């Protein structure tokens, strides 16, 4: 009898012995996972090929050799609301409290390329993030923050080129050259079409803008992460764990293909690609997901795109805890959810982490809540021991089997998307959106049937719960103030220079071979507004019409 046969025999005996007991608990029998996992579940796993060591291909155990035994992850809190002045205060508070990186949230008009005085911006200015109309706002936003020292992540997609240009211009004024700048722009338009909704232009010109940024940064802003290919929002929109990484990696493949098609060498830009994952509630499934994503990307980059540099094959990622898993009911329970999600992200080897605040199902987070969220990271880092050993769950029968399973599911999706002609085609067909929606609907029905318990929502509710106090309220006058500021900027600037810069940008947009970044940078320096710049591009590129199928 071989070792495996022996285990199989023992397993059969075990299964036999528990049949009766299990039958008494039918309500726990619907789970997709097996009851226990054994060496049989990972018998085909090859340590050297599939797991290996941290910092070594396929990076299943982590992208750096030392991981948190060298440096902790970057504790990066996503923040921004109201005006640049208010947000600047919050950033400086965060830096004083021990945050090691900034993460800027922009309001919706900014994300969709509208100025604060556009009628469509009415009611939205300063609501979900800070309003940026021109370079003047950006100067205030980073006032007294040394851009040579801090690393800044900006959640900006369709107009990413414009915000990056503004950041470069502010740094220049501070005396910091572009090659010193560290940070990330999200710049991931495909998931906007599929899940998040802040798109402006159609796919083709959007992909051009993205490759223009890749090319410009590889020469001028070499430490900048030019894209954060995001599964976070796909998961928030309701996908499963495997769908999250499958659709995101498919997006990643599309970006790499576009850049190669534009004439870039894969190793010139691939090292600056980064990813953005969700940390959801199911801790072990999430750890497996993070591990699987690294393994898939490494193999895709090596085998499909023939990358040579190690860096090109390493999937580095930022993580945010799952906003959609926060409950409005008994909001303090969210602290525990976030702690578990943090544990998952850390055991999964994240490079940076944003922890959500307990009150985010109700409003923007208050300062107290943000403090608890940040301290959750500190506790996991210093007290839990989870950060003391690299990839601590490797070798677990369950986690390894789960890693394989998620990898397989994701690869099946990627194959399907390839057959459709890639991520852009799959999105245009509405395929990815439909898959996400189906999962979201199933989740909701499981919650409503009680098959999935959400504490405080469909179980353990409190009757007549007191609404929480001290929620952050964005001052309703922010829209008016921002409009007044914008009027001032427009009055003060050299309008001839603006006109000339915009005309120049217009011409550049029409020439497909022209890199738009230098033209955008020149325009922002004249204090041309975000809306003006985006309108020039709208004029040439048109606007995306969403594909929605329910």
């Amino acid at each position, binding site marked *: 009898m071989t070792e495996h046969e022996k285990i199989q025999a023992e397993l059969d005996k075990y299964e036999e012995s528990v049949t009766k007991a299990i039958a008494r608990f039918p309500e726990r029998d619907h789970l997709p996972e097996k009851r226990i996992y054994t060496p049989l579940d990972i018998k085909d796993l090859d340590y050297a090929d599939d797991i290996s060591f941290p910092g070594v291909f396929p990076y299943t155990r982590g992208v750096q050799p030392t991981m948190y035994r060298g440096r902790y992850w970057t504790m990066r809190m996503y923040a921004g609301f109201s005006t640049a002045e208010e947000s600047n205060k919050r950033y400086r508070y965060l830096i004083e409290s021990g945050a090691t990186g900034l993460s800027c949230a922009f309001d919706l008009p900014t994300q969709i390329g509208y100025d604060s005085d556009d009628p469509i911006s009415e009611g939205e200015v300063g609501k979900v993030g800070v309003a940026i109309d021109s370079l003047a706002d950006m100067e205030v936003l980073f006032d007294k923050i040394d851009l040579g020292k801090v690393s800044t992540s900006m959640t900006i997609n369709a107009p990413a080129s414009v915000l990056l240009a503004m950041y470069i211009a502010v740094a220049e004024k501070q005396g910091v050259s572009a090659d010193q700048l560290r940070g990330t722009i999200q710049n991931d338009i495909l998931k906007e079409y599929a899940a998040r909704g802040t798109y402006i232009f*159609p796919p083709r010109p959007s992909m051009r803008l993205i490759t223009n940024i890749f090319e410009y940064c590889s020469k001028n802003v070499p430490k900048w992460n030019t894209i954060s290919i995001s599964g976070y929002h796909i998961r928030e929109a309701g996908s499963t764990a495997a769908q999250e990484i499958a659709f995101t990696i498919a997006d990643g493949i599309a970006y790499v293909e576009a850049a190669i098609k534009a004439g870039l060498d894969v190793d010139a830009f691939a090292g600056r690609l980064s990813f953005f994952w969700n940390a959801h509630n199911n801790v072990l499934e999430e750890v497996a997901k993070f591990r699987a994503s690294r393994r898939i990307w490494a193999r895709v980059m090596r085998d499909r795109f023939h990358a040579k540099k190690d860096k090109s094959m390493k999937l580095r990622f930022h993580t945010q805890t799952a906003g959609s898993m926060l409950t409005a009911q008994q909001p303090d329970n969210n602290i525990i959810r976030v702690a578990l999600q943090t544990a998952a992200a850390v055991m999964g080897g994240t490079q940076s982490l944003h922890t959500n605040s307990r009150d985010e199902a109700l409003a923007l987070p208050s300062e107290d809540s943000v403090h608890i969220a940040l301290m959750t990271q500190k506790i996991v880092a210093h007290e839990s021991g989870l950060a003391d050993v690299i990839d601590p769950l490797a070798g677990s029968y369950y986690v390894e089997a789960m890693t394989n399973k998620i990898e397989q599911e994701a690869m099946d999706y990627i194959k399907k998307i390839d057959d459709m002609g890639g991520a852009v085609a799959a999105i245009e*067909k509405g395929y990815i959106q439909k898959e996400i929606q189906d999962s979201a609907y199933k989740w909701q029905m499981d919650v409503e049937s009680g098959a999935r318990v959400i504490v405080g929502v469909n179980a353990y509710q409190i009757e007549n719960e007191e609404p929480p106090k001290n929620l952050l309220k964005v001052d309703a006058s922010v829209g008016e103030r921002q409009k007044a500021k914008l009027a001032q900027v427009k009055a003060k600037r050299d309008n001839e220079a603006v006109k000339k810069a915009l005309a120049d940008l217009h011409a550049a947009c029409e020439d497909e071979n022209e890199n738009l970044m230098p033209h955008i940078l020149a325009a922002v320096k004249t204090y041309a507004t975000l809306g003006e710049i985006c309108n020039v591009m709208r004029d040439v590129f*048109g606007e995306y*019409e*969403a594909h*929605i*199928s*329910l």
Partner: protein
Amino acid sequence: MLPPVLCFERGRDMDIAEEVLNGNRLALSRAITSIENEDEKSTEIMKRLYPHTGHAFVLGVTGPPGAGKSTLTDKMAREYRKRGMTVGIIAIDPTSPFSGGAILGDRIRMNGLTLDEGVFIRSMGTRGSLGGLSHKTADAVKAMDAFGKDIIFVETVGVGQSEVDIVKAADTTMVVLIPGMGDDIQAIKAGILEIGDVFTVNKADHDGADKLVREINMMLDLDGVMKDWRPPVEKVIANQNIGVKELIAQIEKHYDYIKSNGILAERRTKRTKDEILDILGSRIGSYITQKIVDDGRLDDYVEQIKARKTDPYTVVGNVLDEMLK
């Protein structure tokens, strides 16, 4: 002089037919609801509107799901608007046979038209009617016609019976196809070929567009030996607004053709005949059904048939003999 139709629907009080003729958009909307629900007011409304119909050009838009019918309709409507014509659009989506509900999603692709006062878009569910385009759709078209619309698009579900029914409702029928449907071309051969007055290959920038055009042309040539009108095949890229003007030129050519050759008059005569027969059939049907349900005879018949004492054919024969004598 017919009596005014008063609408007490949902607390509102207005003479719907009169208001439709006055160009009241809410009245048009509520008239269509009445028609769809076949409520007690609908017949009166239609009687009042009917004399004012017959002016609009009705364009049927059909083709498989995903062919871009709504996007194309949107772009064509914009072009007609530029030419000063007013536009009505009826977009039909399938009703779920299980829940009876429907997602009416075509409107999303026409959001840019919502605020144009010269355009009125109405989404309808098939509500289980086999064709989806029974006299309810035809009556909704008439309501828009009486309201004063110059052109009315009727966009079908794109599956099943609706393709054939559209021909009855429309003056000109346009079939929209896209490359990359694979073996679906076989199915097209079977059904759609006979009904298209104009064929459109959308997404013409995708691989296989030229091949599809060739295939359709080939089939039309095989099919069309005996016909006067050889349907043209136009390439468009609807979402980039490419080829739309040329497409409209072909549609107008067809409209002129059927007008000048008496075909339009013929089609409309046939349509009127169908209408009478449809309404007659459905009224008689529902009259008799109601009767035998109300007096409890239906259940008796069912019992007798179950016991094999009689059969459905005899039962229906007897009922008809009795009621129609």
